[in-house]
């Protein structure tokens, strides 16, 4: 059996209350999947559990935990082992995008951003990777960002954390390949979710439903290792990466 034949039935979502995750979960529920949702707020998880069950999910388990806090990861993993030991897919969907200016003036904020977007993500994925590698099956997908493809003046803290996570996933992919475990890097462009509400919107902001559809398709069947969503961002970022640094540093976006 090859890795691309994962039948995707039992899915763990880390950061289940994030804007993109909400849409992905709805579509997975419609497919009748088993879901295990991890997020901070127990009240929100309860609402999600009700909604996704009514929308067709076979089972919806929830575990309330702060994913940015690495001390809590053991508890999450223990809960998974006890309740959904034969999971086949892990989707990492949490992240934090605070005003870049705050990170420039406060090292605490800067470190928190790196902690939630990069450090904690590598920690929890390492736990799940070991389990899937041992079972020689499954799929790990993580939502990073096109912001990680190039450091920009306006958003380089978030960008560097997501870019680092993309690099981490590259290596992880290579490590898990012999075991037949897929690793998918999902790089969305700007999406209309609560995370981006404070930004001035324009036509580039994608509909979360469309983004989720592409993610679900990537989880379901053979897909590129790196998924840009909406697709146009693959070409945009290819172009953006070509710009010489001496010019790029003068650009104000």
């Amino acid at each position, binding site marked *: 059996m090859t890795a691309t034949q994962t039948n995707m039935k039992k899915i763990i979502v880390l950061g289940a*209350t994030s*804007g993109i995750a*909400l849409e992905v979960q709805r579509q997975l529920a419609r497919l009748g999947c088993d879901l295990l949702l991890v997020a901070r*707020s127990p*009240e*929100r998880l309860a*609402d*999600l559990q*009700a*909604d996704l069950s*009514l*929308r067709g999910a076979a089972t919806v388990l929830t575990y309330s935990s702060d994913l940015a806090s690495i001390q809590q990861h053991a508890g999450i993993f223990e809960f998974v082992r006890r309740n959904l030991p034969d999971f086949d897919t892990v989707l990492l969907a949490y992240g934090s995008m605070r005003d870049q200016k705050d990170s420039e003036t406060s090292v605490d904020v800067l470190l928190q951003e790196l902690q939630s977007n990069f450090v904690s993500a590598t920690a929890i994925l390492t736990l799940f990777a070991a389990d899937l590698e041992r079972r020689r099956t499954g799929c790990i997908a993580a939502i990073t960002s096109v912001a990680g493809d190039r450091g920009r003046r306006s958003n380089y803290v978030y960008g560097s954390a997501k870019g680092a996570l993309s690099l981490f996933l590259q290596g992880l992919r290579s490590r898990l390949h012999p075991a037949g475990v897929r690793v998918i890097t999902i790089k969305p462009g700007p999406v209309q979710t*609560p995370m981006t*509400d*404070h*930004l*001035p*919107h324009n036509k580039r902001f994608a509909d979360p439903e469309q983004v989720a559809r592409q993610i679900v398709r990537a989880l379901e069947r053979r897909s590129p290792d790196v998924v840009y969503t909406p697709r146009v961002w693959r070409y945009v970022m290819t172009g953006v990466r070509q710009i010489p640094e001496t010019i790029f540093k003068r650009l104000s976006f």
Partner: protein
Amino acid sequence: MSSQSATSLRRQPASNSPSTRILSWGCYPKTAHLHVHKPAWNDQVPQILQAASPGSLLPYGLGRSYGDSCLNAGRELIDCRRLNRFLAFDESTGILRCESGVSLSDIVDMFLPKGWFLPVTPGTRFVTVGGAIANDVHGKNHHCAGTFGTHVSQIGLHRSNDGLVTCNAEYNADMLHATIGGLGLTGIIAWADIQLKRVAGPWIDAESIPFQSLTTFLDLSRESNDRFEYTVAWLDCFAGKSLRGIFFRGNHAGDAGRKFHPRRGPKLLFALPGWALNRYSVKAFNAAYYKLHARKPGATVVSYDRFFYPLDAIRQWNLIYGRQGFLQYQCVIPETNLEAFEELLDRIALSGMGSFLGVVKQFGLAPPAGMLSFPRPGLTIALDFAMRGERTLQLMQSLDEVVLESGGALYPAKDARMPPALFEASYPRWRSFVPYIDPKLSSSFWRRVTEAQAQ
């Protein structure tokens, strides 16, 4: 400046100039809002209410109200569309609990395959539950099922003073009564319990019958109301002296012997130029529409979406009226006053500004579900008029005279210009509604029709 459709909601960085552009379905009036809050969870709503200054907020759903009842010009909106979760469903009773931003479309998609349908549905499925309650919407089954609010047994309401309040027949019954048809002014609906209805499937046994006079219409309507769950008529107000129309009636059908495929129609991507709709093109359309239905009258089995939501087949159909937008005029006139109804049609015909969406329905006798509910015994007619400036407004003023004199009423959800006096006459109880308004909430409509009188 590019015109924004109601669906492309924006949230701009905090600024003091009104910039966020949200339009209602009629694309008139053109408004700017200071800010749009977009809570994704009910637990975020109290904070938004707390932080707001008095009279600054209004809940907003899918923006299908035609005029300014869903707008709050120069102030703020709470976009409720992310509050769209189903919370519970009782298979034995058919009661669905869901958040207020759930759309009727979502409910149908999810529950029709399980054999449940909306107790009452308006002519579009793209409205939210919150909007359906706030406007106490009606449908083709008003004569036997009443309004949407009749089937809402319980709600959770965020109030700026009292937190999340549960309202049902036992607790806060008056607040429930005020919120149904309350134009979103009594609070932010967190969740609602809706009584769904058992149906055999997605099919409707439908009949269409051409008619040539108002009395034939009334005879048809009276005769059909006992035997048919759904009745409505389309009216050609361009046929000159001789009135004509098509009467539609239907019941839920069992198996149609064929498979149901949901349709996904085309979408109008941009506003048509203003001249595209003129008296000749509309006249031609109406004649063709009439002939199409008159040629093959009789009974057929059609899918529910064709029967209930013919206009939803073209997404953003409102753009055919062009950038200037359009106004809808929906009134109800007591049946005892048929001359008034005829007078209304005469004035429209005389103006030469009629529309291709003349919809007529005989309301039932059910008592109103809310304090400010629009439906009441009588004949209701809804007409669209392209916005052509002063002369469109003048025609409506002349229609107002007829409605006022007949003892009728106008529908706030469709209105962008009714004078305070007509509101007063239509909703004489509005002053007893005022104490139920949440101090943090207000709307363009409400200020327009009440402010002069409140002073």
